[in-house]
């Protein structure tokens, strides 16, 4: 049986949808059967980022209201041979059209068929969030290196810790700008991870290619040459249990090493 991972953040616009699309794509590239579920009812865009919008016939609300069977609503990604599917959100209803119990039932059903169910959560902590986490076994919290995003991530982590059946969340820090971190104009990776005290599962650079790719409906993870693509592929490998070192390793090591030196009183 597969596992369901919810991608959430609290704050809007930090990259949940981008992360969902790319983790899903990267897992499919590893040969896993993946179903992406867009729970952002009323503001769906996972389909757009995946370039699958024009093939939507039914949506999530149709499924939970039994207007169609699950497999009728699933949109197949033709770039993969029967590995990657999307269950789109409804564009016309609102978040109250679905209840958490219905979501749980749906996700449990999908887990029979797929290795990974990646659930794209809407921003906020209301009904949409509750629906998104209802069926999840694991959670990934996305933040950017900004104080307000980190604050909301902290809030969400607090809520996730109360969810029974959801493992302790792991963190993705998205849109890192190296020069700003180095100058101390942005919170650095260590600061954020210590502050939130959860495990880091990946860091993704701020990369124009991500935006370009999304606009073309081609998740960046499909392009093996970009830095962000490697970051998403690494996250997928970590989800699969591999231990992959962080990309900006040099910097991190320097930090840790200088701390150790201080500890031993070496100059």
């Amino acid at each position, binding site marked *: 049986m597969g596992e369901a991972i919810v991608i959430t953040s609290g704050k809007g616009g930090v990259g949940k949808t981008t992360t969902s699309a790319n983790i899903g794509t990267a897992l499919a590239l590893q040969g896993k059967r993946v179903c992406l579920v867009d729970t952002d009812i009323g503001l769906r865009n996972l389909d757009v980022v995946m370039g699958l919008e024009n093939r939507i016939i039914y949506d999530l609300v149709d499924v939970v209201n039994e207007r169609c069977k699950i497999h009728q609503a699933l949109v197949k990604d033709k770039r993969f041979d029967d590995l990657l599917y999307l269950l789109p959100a409804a564009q016309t209803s609102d978040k109250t059209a679905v209840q958490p119990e219905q979501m749980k039932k749906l996700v449990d059903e999908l887990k029979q068929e797929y290795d990974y169910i990646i659930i794209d959560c809407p921003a906020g902590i209301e009904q949409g969030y509750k629906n998104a986490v209802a069926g999840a076994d694991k959670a990934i919290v996305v933040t950017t290196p900004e104080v307000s995003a980190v*604050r909301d991530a902290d809030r969400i982590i*607090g809520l996730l810790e109360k969810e029974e059946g959801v493992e302790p969340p792991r963190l993705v820090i998205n849109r890192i700008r190296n020069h700003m971190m180095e100058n101390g104009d942005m919170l650095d990776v260590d600061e954020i991870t210590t*502050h*939130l005290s959860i495990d880091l599962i990946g860091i993704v650079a701020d990369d124009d290619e991500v935006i370009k790719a999304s606009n073309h409906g081609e998740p960046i993870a499909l392009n093996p040459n970009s830095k962000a693509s490697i970051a998403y592929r690494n996250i997928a490998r970590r989800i699969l249990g591999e231990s992959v070192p962080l990309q900006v390793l040099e910097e991190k090591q320097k930090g840790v090493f200088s701390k150790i030196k201080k500890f031993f009183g070496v100059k």
Partner: protein
Amino acid sequence: MKKTQNVLIKGTKDGLTLHLDDQCSYTELKRELNDKLSESSRLNEESPLITVKVKIGNRYLTDEQKEELHEFVRQKKNLVIDSIESNVLTKSEAERMKAEKEIVSVAKIVRSGQVLEVPGDLLLIGDVNPGGTVVAGGNIFVMGSLKGIAHAGAGGNTNAIISASEMMPTQLRISHHINRSPDIKEDVEKKDMECAYIDQNDQIVIDRLQVLIHLRPNLTTLEGGS
């Protein structure tokens, strides 16, 4: 028939004390108190108010009865009740007192939007993140960083203290006093554990932890220690 006295008035160097017997009924007590206070009315209307302590032995009075007693004495004489002392406590009072004395330890990160509240002292093994709040009837000891709000002595205890390994609070409250963090944070080196307390000027101040040894000797609960 000569009855034993249920009400005794004694003058001490600290003022008057009313001893009320704890064996008779409450109604009987009130009747006798009424007689006693009326007969010994040597004081006139203009004389100043005299405070009395009331000792009720092993009798338990409800809040309403206490209130009644206050009223009763006040009407009779130029007397006001300063305190009512009883040897007995209700179970709930005893439990509350115990809880307020107890130190509760919690291992967690108090995150944004969360409130952690204990009746007594709080020992937090973890951090209080910005937007998170810890509240204690007594003292607060944070083993990690305090970056959110801490409210010690929430029931009114101005002697309560707050300490943290890393003191970077958004706001500190002790009893009814509030102290918010300076708007401009100077980038200081990580300091040792610090504490916050209310000083003689009724201000919340932050200082080295060690000052508490002299300022708050009551923090030591070790008995017979040298």
